[in-house]
């Protein structure tokens, strides 16, 4: 068992984020989806993934970075949670290994953990997947000037 953890890099609204692999159940693409009436704005609808119907959250909108246009055809990350929820992102990049723990000593406003973000590792903001998908209110993310 490796002592280093792995993180899935994704891109949303032009910025890169990391999601801990332990939270990731599967990767896929949004194919058929329907609008979910009465749901919050960041819920792009309902998709069918791996035989289940799950809610689809548009990550960029959820993080307050943009407003969702359409989620059709976007890559999605199925988040492992009490109920699985799918996150629609702009791009799925790759798996990387990162250090033992998130560093708290990274300087700059970017490094501060927020309710959405567990911390930063080498400039990559690692998201708290559970917080993203359980619908709680999130602190706004500081905007990064480097993509």
């Amino acid at each position, binding site marked *: *068992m*490796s*002592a*280093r*953890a792995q*993180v899935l890099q994704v891109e949303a609204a032009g910025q890169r984020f990391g999601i*801990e692999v*332990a939270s990731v159940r599967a990767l896929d693409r949004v194919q*058929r*989806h*329907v*609008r*979910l*009436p*009465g*749901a*919050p704005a960041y*819920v792009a*609808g*309902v*998709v*069918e993934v791996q*035989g*289940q*119907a*799950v*809610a689809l*959250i548009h990550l960029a909108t959820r993080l307050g970075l943009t407003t969702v*246009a*359409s989620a*059709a055809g976007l890559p999605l990350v199925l988040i*492992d949670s*009490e*109920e*699985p*929820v799918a996150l629609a992102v702009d791009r799925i990049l790759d798996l990387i290994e*990162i250090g*033992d*723990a*998130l560093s708290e000593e990274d300087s700059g406003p970017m490094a501060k*953990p927020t*309710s959405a973000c*567990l*911390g930063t590792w080498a400039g990559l903001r*690692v998201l*708290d997947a*559970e*917080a993203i*998908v*359980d*619908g*709680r209110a999130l602190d706004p993310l500081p905007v990064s000037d480097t993509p």
Partner: protein
Amino acid sequence: MPNDPSLQELFRHEAQGIVDQLELLLDAGTPEAAAEGLRLAHTLKGLAAATEAKPLRDLARSLEAALDGFEPGDEARNQALLEAVDAARGLLEAAEGSGGVARDAAAALEGPAAGAPRHGVPQARQALWLRMRPSLRALGRSAQTRLKSLESGRDPRRRRRELGHELELWCAAAGLLGHTSAAASGLELANFLQQRAIPAASIPAAQALNGWFCAQIELDVPLDVPLGPEGLANMGGLRGSSSASERFGLAVEFPWPDVDLPADFVQAVDRACGGRRILDARPARPSSRFVRGILGLSTRRSRRRGDGAIQVSRQRLDRLLELAEELVALRVRTRRLATNLRQLATRPRDEATLDLSRLAHDASELDRELDDVARANQQAVLRARRVPLRGLYSLVRVTVREFLARHPDKACRLEVEGAENRVDKGVLDLMVDPVLQLVRNALQHGIAPREERRAGGKPEVARLRLTSKASPAGLLLEVSDDGEGLDLERLERAARRRGLLLLRGSRDALALAFAPGVTTAEAVTDDAGRGVGLASVLERVRALRGRLTFHSAPGEGTRARLAIPPAASTARVLLVRTGREVYAISLGAVLGVQEGQAPILAKRSVQLSQLVDPPKVPDRRRGMPLPAPREGERRRKDRVTVQIAAVGSRDPEEALHCMVDDVLRRDLVVVRPLGRRFAPPGIEGAALLGDGRIVLVVDVWRLHAGGQSRALELPRRTP
């Protein structure tokens, strides 16, 4: 010989193996496969000849001829080949099945060997070998003559080739009988003889080969190589090597390094080679391809055809379920057919339209019947698959008993409830592991030894409860104990040790217990501590599309609740359209459908469009794509009213009148329930239509009720 049934069986078996192989090779259709097939056909011919099975031999001969001129892509020929192979199989099967003796062309081989063991017929083999020997001897002598005339330069080539062919046949049979060494040398020789141009330098080697061959046959040396790859590795081939030939004029590799050749054998070989001493001890080398081929055949025990023994009834049930699903699919098609016919029938007047409308009516009837049948079938099967939880409970009891026996310092009482509840067998099978895991965790970690408990003020005997409750939403099963609870700090430490991320306290520490690889155990035992227990429980629960509620705290014990939904189901729904979106309403609740808007006096009327709050700006990219409305057709709002019964009352007065733009059709769909988290009340799930589209299944009453009290609904944090 034809009267020896065990021998017959032996050959039939081999022949069957060859035929099977041939079929595979023909399917491959490559030139290499054809070459291999050619060799097999050779062998088959030999077999058939050896057992005097004339029809089979003729067939094998024509197979050989056809394979010889093989050209890939020659469809006609390939077809003919496959037919020949089928015929061969037919011949063999006829022999197998027929109890009696048939000496005519129809039965190639005589008499099945009922129950005669396949292996262990050494006597039969030996008998056949003895019978074959004279022919082989004669062949060896012919070969000697041929080779001599080759040396002198006078040689009729045709006769040489024929000799080669015969040698091949007989040696193939000999190989099958286990005289693989003789077979090998004979076949090499045959190969040599069949060559067009024979280099003079290799004639001595061929003579040596022949000497070996003749010696084997002459002395009937039981140099039986055991059939199998090991034996094969021990087999040598004869080669002439030029460097050694300087010493002896010729050198031969001795195939069995550890075996002493009997002196008379060595002499026999020398004699056969015209007095030249040729044997020399050398390490073994792999044998010729022919022999490998033969051995490969022999060692490949027959493919058991027709293995389909009757399986246990659960598989049959599964099959029935499949059939049921097929029926559903069929039903969908029938429905479409009916619709088409109905449409056809509405076209302008003809004699034909009368028939058409009748057909349409019939088709609708059929559709209804199929509907009922399909549904009933499915229900019946699902019901049949349901078994009580009793079996699982017994397993738990056994587990607890065993544990307590191994850990006498712990005491525990198992309380069970709800053993009579039924669950789908497949689901039960998948539940066993997680439940047992939870129980083991409780026993191992949750329950402390007697002393500790007493010291902590708890009763000595711990309590472990296993309860289950059936509900329409599925099965609720709970494993709880009054033990220690999880030590979250230790858990966190262990997780950190493992290098898991997320150690910033934002994640519920409890969830750490479910991360793979985290364990607080100091050592791995059989029962727990590998760190995969709870994680696997979670995986399994998710695989069952269920939910796991887990509560554990120091001093409070542990409670794990599994909620397993019923097996996948289909639902009959009514598909309606409002705006550009389609929704499904459970048909059970629908009282009726009326043209026009809701009656003014209706107590409760709603517009579906209001309930689902469609976007103000028509956005083609959202929701499902619908076919564009025909030209000139404006959106006709709220043209149809669906009466939806209130719970527990089918009184139209109490019904909810829901207005939609259009009613599309009834349908039978597969429903996937939606999680509670983001779905507002009233959205039950997503249904998959026959054409692949998703529609939401709505409970209109709930939507209506929810809408009235709807504030901005933040998704609830689950407790």
